């Protein structure tokens, strides 16, 4: 594996040696996640984010709100993701010139310039195989030569002249249950976090309004800049001219006074014997308040204590893996069938001589329930103004486990 490291300078050039402070901090932190996002060095400040196994580091000379930089770096990563389909080392390496051109457009003298993906795409076209072939034949380039129309309008997020033969608008209502379940199975903390992701492929300048059957469920909402805030305040209707393509319309939290239905329960018995090099591991998962829907794609992840050497388990359903290096047990369960509850049983081999772990590991559970928004949120209707055609509209509901943790 070759190691990649790329730099881009705005204003005067900073010697690369500042990065050593970062590498030092990275070395010190046991875990990549524990590298402090802000590092102070004698002359500079380093602000970094870690995403998709990459570090994005920016060098700051003067006071600036750290979130400003962090937010920007994430926006950069989002843009790469958007352009290259993934934000990985390989993608950046393959497209280093585009990366450079993008960064050039996104930041001017340390101040963000164009960060909306719709605008950037007008300035610099995303790479596709077809285009590179065409370009090499015709000699045309990936770089646009007119100012993107959005840049000057009040709706910088939408590009002009959008045309589709099939006009479609899809909304995914995705709700995640964040929960902490304690040893005895009672809920310590639970809350529903939802987002509405939209995929809008509509020609022209459609003006949409989306209303809910029960908008008052939404307790705390954050909006894409395209949403008219006043309209929401007064009528609880989402009214907006959408960006073209995929974007996150809103994210919301369901008011905490509503009790959260927890769709699964876990029976567990994990024990390590004193002075012996083995332990028992037994977990069973069952459905609970599933509202008549199947719970799918269940995965259980357990970070086992360091003294665990290996695990010897038998699942009644699905398959499991245990990584002896990271000590992570992953059990891919699949669907729950209420007739036969899936369980995973077996022995744990411990390092001999080491003291038994004091704490049982907590179980992180992932699942998915299709066609259900657990909060009961329902989209009432979607109306389009401003264009004549009839768009195809679709709403999908999914409930997932968010940070769903069972303490044992």
């Amino acid at each position, binding site marked *: *594996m*070759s190691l*990649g490291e790329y730099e881009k300078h705005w*204003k*005067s050039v900073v010697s690369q040696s500042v*990065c*050593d402070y*970062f590498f030092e901090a*990275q*070395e010190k932190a046991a875990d*990549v996640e524990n590298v402090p996002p*802000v590092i*102070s060095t004698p002359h500079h*400040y380093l602000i*970094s984010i870690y995403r998709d*196994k*990459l*570090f994005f*580091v920016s060098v700051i000379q003067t*006071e*600036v*709100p*750290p979130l400003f930089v*962090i937010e920007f770096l994430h926006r950069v990563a989002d843009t790469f993701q958007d352009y290259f389909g993934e934000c990985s080392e390989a993608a*950046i*390496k393959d497209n*280093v010139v585009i*990366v450079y*051109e993008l960064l*050039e457009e996104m930041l001017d003298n*340390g*101040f*963000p310039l164009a*960060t909306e993906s719709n605008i950037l795409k007008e300035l610099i076209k995303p790479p596709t195989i077809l285009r590179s072939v065409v370009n090499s034949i015709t000699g045309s*380039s*990936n770089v646009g030569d007119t100012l993107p*129309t959005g840049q000057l*309008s009040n*709706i*910088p997020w939408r590009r002009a002249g959008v045309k589709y033969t099939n006009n479609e608008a899809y909304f995914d209502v995705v709700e995640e249950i*964040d929960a*902490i379940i304690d040893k005895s199975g009672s809920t310590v903390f639970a809350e529903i976090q939802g987002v509405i992701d939209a995929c809008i492929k509509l020609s022209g300048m459609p*003006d949409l309004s989306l209303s809910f*059957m029960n908008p*008052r469920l939404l307790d705390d909402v*954050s*909006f894409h*800049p395209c949403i008219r*805030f006043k309209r929401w305040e007064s009528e*609880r209707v989402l009214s907006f*001219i959408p960006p073209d393509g995929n974007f996150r319309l809103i994210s919301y939290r369901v008011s*905490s006074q*509503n009790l959260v239905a927890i769709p699964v329960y876990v029976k567990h018995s994990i024990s390590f014997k004193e002075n012996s090099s083995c332990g028992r591991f037994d977990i069973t998962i069952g459905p609970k308040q599933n509202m008549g829907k199947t719970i799918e794609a269940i995965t259980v992840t357990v970070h086992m204590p*360091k003294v665990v050497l290996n695990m010897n388990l038998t699942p009644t359903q699905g398959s499991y893996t245990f990584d002896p290096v990271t000590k992570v047990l992953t059990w891919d369960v699949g669907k729950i069938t209420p007739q036969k509850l899936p369980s995973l049983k077996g022995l744990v081999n411990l390092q001999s001589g080491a*003291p038994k772990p004091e704490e049982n590991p907590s179980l*992180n559970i992932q699942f998915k329930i299709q066609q259900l928004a657990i909060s009961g949120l329902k989209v*009432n209707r979607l109306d389009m*103004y401003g264009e004549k055609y009839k768009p195809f509209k679709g709403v999908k509901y999914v409930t997932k486990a968010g*940070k769903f*943790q069972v303490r044992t």
Partner: protein
Amino acid sequence: MQRFLQLPGAAVRPGGREADQEAASPVLAPEGGAPPWYQALQPEELRWLQAPEEDTTPEESLEGPCPEPGQGQSQSQPLRHDDLKAMLDTNKDSLKLEAMKRIVAMIARGKNASDLFPAVVKNVACKNIEVKKLVYVYLVRYAEEQQDLALLSISTFQRGLKDPNQLIRASALRVLSSIRVPIIVPIMMLAIKEAASDMSPYVRKTAAHAIPKLYSLDSDQKDQLIEVIEKLLADKTTLVAGSVVMAFEEVCPERIDLIHKNYRKLCNLLIDVEEWGQVVIISMLTRYARTQFLSPTQNESLLEENSEKAFYGSEEDEAKGPGSEEAASTALPTRKPYVMDPDHRLLLRNTKPLLQSRSAAVVMAVAQLYFHLAPKAEVGVIAKALVRLLRSHSEVQYVVLQNVATMSIKRRVSTGPRPALVVQQGMFEPYLKSFYIRSTDPTQIKILKLEVLTNLANETNIPTVLREFQTYIRSMDKDFVAATIQAIGRCATNIGRVRDTCLNGLVQLLSNRDELVVAESVVVIKKLLQMQPAQHGEIIKHLAKLTDNIQVPMARASILWLIGEYCEHVPRIAPDVLRKMAKSFTAEEDIVKLQVINLAAKLYLTNSKQTKLLTQYVLSLAKYDQNYDIRDRARFTRQLIVPSEQGGALSRHAKKLFLAPKPAPVLESSFKDRDHFQLGSLSHLLNAKATGYQELPDWPEEAPDPSVRNVEVPEWTKCSNREKRKEKEKPFYSDSEGESGPTESADSDPESESESESKSSSESGSGESSSESDNEDQEEDEEKGRSSESEQSEEEGKKKKMKKRKKVPEGQEGGSSSDEGSDSSSSSSESEMTSETEEEQVEPASWRKKTPPSSKSAPAAKEVSLLDLEDFTPPSVQPVSPPTVVSTSLAADLEGLTLTDSPLVPSLLSPVSGAGRQELLHRVAGEGLAVDYTFSRQPFSGDPHMVSVHIHFSNSSDTPIKGLHVGTPKLPPGISIQEFPEIESLAPGESTTVVMGINFCDSTQAANFQLCTQTRQFYVSIQPPVGELMAPVFLSENEFKKEQAKLTGMNEITEKLTLPDTCRSDHIVVQKVTATANLGRVPCGTSDEYRFAGRTLTSGSLVLLTLDARPTGAAQLTVNSEKMVIGTMLVKDVVQALTQ
């Protein structure tokens, strides 16, 4: 205050395990081939000199497309450069592009490509735009090193500055200003000045960006640059606002006077500025407000205020100029009653919606603004938004938690030896559980959350918090466990009630297997014992036994200190411990040795018979220790305690010296006092002043003159020259921006809405304190100038709230008095209006062509109006006077919108109270037909599932209205309407009432329908408060209890509330509940309990409401209903009604 990302270089590095290995030796080359860019560690010049040799490493895979494989090391490099040069010299754009791409790839990897400079710079005028852009990239990177050659390119940029294409003008300016060559400063200055009055806002934005670049190159240009900034600050486009404020912050943050005239404009534009600009503007305005307004907390609590003041004063007096100017903090108060400056209010009001931004940076910026500027009672609104950010990326969490930690500690003010709770505002308390820690959180996040949890712990929630902590103690993450133990210690010191519990818990931890845990516990126990040593002899004994096992130096030292300090509680064990320690003295760590000496000295003084020899032995050992601290300490101690001929004077007091009662340590958060840094800033995060940090000034004692913010008319018409330019540029962006010209495009429609809204709010802001109706007058005039289209759409949107209009007595509409502030601002905007309309006519056709979106969507705009505004006559038919009155009500509506913090629903509901009238159609909108409605709460005769609604028509026009009936309703599924019989004619001045039934299908969705007359149709809608969706049923107490028992669990919603004094009598409680919801009272045995029951109209589900009110005012409201949504909303409404 802040300066921005002066210099971010994005170094991208793969993480994961490979990266870790790499990171182990960042400077040494890993065997995979030395990454040559590490050579960059050397000073820049050196690297430049050595470049040819350095770049000789084998090809990296990145240069894959490069034809020649790197073979003959020292020869390949020049060869390749030659090759690139050849490619650049060809006539083929594709080859040039390929070459440039490779060069950029080299730059990206930190390789030196500077010797290609001459070959590259030749291509600066290349036709191919991509080549050109890449050349720009190259130029900006190396121009500083090759200044002479860089000059060759200047003329190209100068030509570019005149290009008709705004993108090319802008990018020429960008590159020109980024070339850091001092010789061209005058050219840059000229270019910036020119661009600052360019007609394209995009170019002006670029000019704003260029200002700090030039300033950092040559600070002598400051005065001229300030002029440009001043000019750009007056720019009215949102595109420019953020960039110019950034330039302002970087070049002349001290010139706060430049902001005065633009303050209101910036506040009003804020919501439409892009996110990055919002952050900059908000933090600048925070500083501005601190210098211009009075503290809103002034009169709240003098005691607290003073302590705070003193704290600020001491920090800032010595630190900064601006602070000390106003910091007459010693002057004690004879204060006038505080009235918030309307401009201060304007800022708070206009930033609040941004709490719902998707950008964490914006949310944080608003949060810090509220924290620093808002009255205490209003700061709470930020909590919810900040808690939301905790769901974001871990870096965001990290920063937010740091700030939350500071905010949550702010509420404790230390008075005296023990920290006391002075104000516990508790804005984060409801979100306590959001800070619970998951085992998967990174350690740094865990520790910050712990900090917040500790700050939030108080008498009431401490059991929960401690239970949580118990879980954490068993964590596998030992750093985190140690932090938890510290946190328990802090809880124990702060909350006396749980001190013993905590102490016992910590003592149990002493038998933990993990040494770190034990050590940490010992240290914390030591601190706790110091607070109340008397009764803890047992614990000290237990600790003494641990000296055999614990190896962690800090813990050993703590135990020794404890034994020494409280040796009279353990008279038998102490000498024994000293014996053991003397034995192992030489093997101990320094910190332990020092404590051994200490222990020896204390024992010698209290129990010299047993310990004299031991002490001497220890002191002798220490005398020859390697560490000079220890030697010093030994010598010093010996002189003190062992009486000698000369040193008698001190040794007599030795006991007092060593065994003096020591003050208990205060365990406090490391976030204490951090709030003297502006929150959200880098300095706050690092808890140290960062370069370029602008101190947040203290509030002034006396408010500076507020009239400086009044914008005068001549401001816009001062110089005819400039005005002309404006006229030239206006058509362009007024068109694309949609400043409500007659040819408004669909996309700009909403914009104009929000703009006019913000305008109206600014109006009210400026004149708020004096008289609101006056402002609305001017609003009227202003509205006249607007296109009727946009007006109507606003109107349509707000129609439901028209009833608010009642607030404004109609008689006042003709009034014409006005205060200075609103007068000038309105006239200025008026003049703006007129100039715009003129421009509209002058507008050259060519601009039209250049803005395709507007022309394309013009028909669309029409459609919007058709769909949205059916209840209005087309603009042409509309008489002139009604819209002015409409706009009055609009202004009132908007005001209500922006002023009230409470959500809309309750404000709609509260006046209903079963009999209250709601407006359905205002007489102005209805052209003389006024329609109100009430929920009569009588069963609807036709259909028991319907809510019966009384509709009152009155005709205030001078012609009879004929054929009133309900037109085709547009109803959501499930909702149905029983229309009232057609009213044939309604004579002028007459009114009538009809009954109609609406089946709302147990939801609070609005029923939209049309009211038709012979000539007109009006779209109206009735939205029922949840309380009207039910009808009372009569149950006995037993039946009630039986039904309630069936509806538990998810169907039960409980809320705690405190009843205000005004609402403690039976009568009022019952009245308020029944006014809010159509429920019947259920008889009840106990006096403190109220029960109500009803059934929803459509499905007949039971709704049971119980209110358990204690005489103290604490109350608990429970609603049981199958319809969870209805239950939830009902609880909200009833709580709202009761607590009002």
